[in-house]
C-alpha cells in the first residue's frame, strides 16, 4: 500500500512546486506564461476547430469545473453538488436542427439556440370583464402588490381592453406564460376572481386573491433553464448544454454570456510550440 501512496505524494509535491503541472483551465485571456494542458488537449481532440471553448472566470455556486477531452470531443462540465448543470463541448460538427439563429456578435461564428425556461418572475394577467370590474381590479391589485410565491416576485398586469372577448384576452396572456385572473361582475361584487392557467388542471372559480395565489403556488413549476446554445465556426462547433434549476437557472444565461468565450486554436498551437511540446 505504501508504494502507491508514495507515488501520489511525490507527484502531489512535484505538482505543487511546478506550475506547469496539472490540467489547468482553458482561459479566455492570453496566458502570460504557458497554455494549459486542458487547452492543448482540446485542440488535440478536435484539430479542425478554429476555436476552443474557454472560461474567463467562475461564479459563486459553481462548485467544480471538470475538463474532459477524447478523440473527437472536448470541453468542460460545471457542477453544483456533483450534479452537472452546464456542459460545453467542442466537436467537429453539431446538429442544430430546429434551433433558432440569433446574433453571435462575431463575424465568423453563427449562433443558434434551442432553450426552454421557467423564469423567476410569475406573471398574472388580470382581465376585468367590464368598466366596473376594471375599477375594482385596480383596488384589488393595490392590496396584493409586492406578493411573492416561494420567494419569487409576482408581476401583475391588467388587460384593460374591455371591449375584446375575454377568451381572446386569455389566449394572449397565455402567450406570455402568464396565469390569468378573470373578474366578472359577480366576482367583483364578492371580492373574488376566477383563476385560469395553461398548466392548471381545472380553473378555480370564486377564489379570493389570497386563495388564488395559493393555488398558483401549488402548481407553479420550479425555475429552470434548459436547452442548447450552438456556436458554429470553421472546422467545429461548440455546444453549451444547459440544465439548470432554482437559483442557478435565474442567472445562468447571463453568466454564460459573460464568462464563456472562444479562444483561437492557433494561439494554443503556438503556445504548445513555445513550451516544447511540438517538436519541429
Amino acid at each position: 500500500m505504501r508504494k502507491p501512496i508514495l507515488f501520489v505524494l511525490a507527484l502531489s509535491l512535484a505538482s505543487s512546486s511546478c506550475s506547469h503541472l496539472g490540467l489547468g483551465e482553458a482561459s479566455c485571456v492570453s496566458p502570460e506564461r504557458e497554455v494549459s494542458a486542458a487547452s492543448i488537449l482540446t485542440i488535440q481532440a478536435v484539430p479542425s476547430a478554429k476555436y476552443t471553448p474557454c472560461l474567463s472566470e467562475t461564479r459563486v455556486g459553481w462548485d467544480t469545473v471538470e475538463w474532459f477531452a477524447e478523440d473527437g470531443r472536448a470541453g468542460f462540465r460545471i457542477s453544483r453538488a456533483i450534479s452537472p448543470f452546464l456542459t460545453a463541448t467542442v466537436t467537429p460538427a453539431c446538429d442544430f436542427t430546429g434551433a433558432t439563429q440569433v446574433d453571435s456578435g462575431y463575424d465568423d461564428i453563427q449562433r443558434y439556440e434551442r432553450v426552454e425556461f421557467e423564469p423567476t418572475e410569475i406573471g398574472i394577467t388580470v382581465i376585468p370583464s367590464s368598466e366596473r370590474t376594471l375599477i375594482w381590479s385596480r383596488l384589488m391589485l393595490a392590496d396584493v402588490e409586492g406578493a411573492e410565491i416561494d420567494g419569487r416576485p409576482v408581476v401583475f398586469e391588467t388587460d384593460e381592453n374591455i371591449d375584446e372577448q375575454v377568451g381572446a384576452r386569455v389566449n394572449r396572456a397565455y402567450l406570455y406564460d402568464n396565469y390569468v385572473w378573470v373578474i366578472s361582475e359577480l366576482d367583483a361584487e364578492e371580492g373574488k376572481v376566477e383563476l385560469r392557467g395553461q398548466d392548471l388542471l381545472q380553473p378555480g372559480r370564486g377564489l379570493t386573491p389570497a386563495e388564488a395565489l395559493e393555488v398558483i403556488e401549488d402548481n407553479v413549476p420550479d425555475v429552470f433553464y434548459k436547452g442548447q446554445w450552438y456556436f458554429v465556426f470553421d472546422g467545429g462547433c461548440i455546444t453549451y448544454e444547459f440544465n439548470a434549476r432554482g437559483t442557478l437557472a435565474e442567472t445562468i444565461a447571463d453568466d454564460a454570456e459573460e464568462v464563456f468565450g472562444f479562444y483561437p486554436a492557433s494561439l494554443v498551437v503556438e503556445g504548445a510550440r513555445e513550451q516544447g511540446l511540438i517538436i519541429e
Partner: protein
Amino acid sequence: MADPQDGSGNQPTIARELPTIGERRELRLAGIRVAGRRRRPSGERAAIERDLRRSGRFWLIEGASMILIWILLFAFPASAEWWTRQDTELLRRIVEIRSDALTSIADAAALLGSEWVLRVLRIGTLLALVFVHRWRHFFAVLLAILIVQGSVDLISHLVGRPRPFVPMIGTWEGPSHPSEPVAQLAVTLVAMAYTLIPPGKIRQRAFVASGVLIAILIAAQLYLGVDHPSDAFVSAFYAPAVTIVLFRWFAPESAFPVTWKRGVAAHLDITGERGESIKGAVRDQLGLEVLTIEQFGLEGSGGSTPLRLKVAGDPDQYVFAKLYSATHLRSDRWYKVGRTILYGSLEDEVRFGSVRRLVEYEDYIQRLMSSAGVPSAEPFGIVELIPEREYLMVSEFLEGSEELTHAEIDDDIIDDALRVIRSMWDAGLAHRDVKPANVMINNGRIVLIDVAFGTVRPSPWRQAVDLANMMVILALRTDAERVYERALHQFAAEDIGEAFAATRSVTLPSQSRSSLALVKKEQGVDLVEEFRRLAPPTEPISIQRWSTRRIRLTLGALVVGLLGLAFVVSEFVGTGVL
C-alpha cells in the same frame, strides 16, 4: 501422546518438566526426546522474517525508480522537454512505417485495452472466484482494480500531460500520462494470474504471457500515436507493482493459497523454507525435534491452522499444534463483528490487539480450564515464529481419541461429560463452543478441546447454553430421557429448564444442528423439544441484546451491503468501474 509420563513414578507431565530442560541438554519424557532449548540472543533474526523475497525487492526498487523518473519527467521543465523530444522522435519513426495492414493489426491489438475486453476479463475472474468461494481473492482483485484505476486517474490529472504531437489515428481519452489502457490491462492480467493460477511454473508462464499481451498493447498504442512511449512504459511497471504489493499484503500466498477446491478455509503454508523455519523454532524454543509437519483436521477449524507434528522420541510421537497469524487475527475480528451484529453485547466480543494477545489468551484459558479440573489437552508451550504476528501453540496430541458422537456411550461417559460442564460452572467458566468435534473420548474419559472461545465469568445464559449443547450431543447417541435423568444427578431441574429455554437454532453449533436434523428425519424425534418437555416449564430467554455499538455495526453493515448491491447493479447496467 497417550501417556505423558517419564517412567520415574512421579508422573511428571512434559509441560511441568519443560522449564528445567534448559539446564539439562537432553531429556526423554513419555518417549519424546526433549533436547536443550535456547534463548534467541539479542539481534538474532526471528524464526521467520517477513521477507519480501527477491521479486518483492525488485518491485520495491522499481517503485522507487519510478518516482525518480516521474520527478525527472515532470518536475523540471528542461527534463520534461528532453523526455518529450525523445518520445516524439521515437513516435515519428513509428509513424513513418504506418501502412493499412499494420494499422488494421494495431486497431485490433488496441482492443486489448478496450472497456469491453477488460470488463469481460474482470467479471469472468470475479465470477470464478465467487464460484470457488475465494472471497479474500475476490476483494483483493476489486481493491487492486479500484486502487490502480483511482491512482492512474489522479496522477493523470495531476500531471496533465497532453497527447503526443504526431498524427493520432486511435481512440484516446484524457491526459496522456500514465497510459490508462496499459495500466488497466496490466492490473487485470496480474490479478488474474495471482488469483486463478496456483503458484509454480504455470503462473510464471502466465506472467510471461501477460507481459507479452501488455507489450502488444503498448506497441499498438505507440503505432496509433495515442501514447508517448514513457506513458506506456510507466503504466506497464506501475500497475503490476501496485497489484503485487497489494496481493502480498492483503492476500499473501502463505495465508491464502490459490487452489481450485471449493470452500477450503484459509490455512498457512507449512512447506518448504517456512516448514524448516517452523521446525527450527520448535527445536529452539521447546526443545522438540520435529520430524514432519502436516495439516490436521482442517475441516473443523477456521480460526487457526491446525497441525500434527511428529517429534523425535522413542518411539517417535505426535504433538498437536495450532498456527496463528495476523490473518487469523483479522478473521477473529470479523467473526466477532458478525456475532455482535447477530446477538448484540450478550458476550465478550472485544477484539484482540495482536496475535500475541490472542495466543496468550488461549494459553491462559487452556491452563485455567486444566487447573479447574476440566480435562483438556496438555499445553506444551508457545513458539514465536514472527514476533507479534505469527505464533505456534503446541500441546498434547490425543492419540487414539475419538469424537463423542462416534463412540459407544454408557452412563459413566454421560456422567463424565456432564461433570465437565459442572466443573466449568463451579469455576465460573464457559467453553462457548461445545460441539461434537470438540468433545473427545480419550482412554474412556471425556476431554474438551479447542478452548479458544472460553471465557471467565460468562453470562448465566452462556453457561446454560454450554449445558444444553452437551446434553444434545449426548442424546444424539442415546436418548433425551436417559441424558435428562443422569443430568439430574449434577444439575437442578430448573438449571436444565433454563438451558433449553435459552436454546435457539443460532445457539446450537452447525455440526449439532445438522446431527439433530438427521435424528429428526430418521427417527422423527426432536431432541430439543424432548428436553423441553422433560424439564420444568421455563419462559424462553431472549438472546438479543441491543447496544449503540451493535446499532452502529448493523447500520454500517447495511450501508456496505447497499453499496455492494449498487456496485453490482452498476456493473450489470454498464456504468461501473470494472
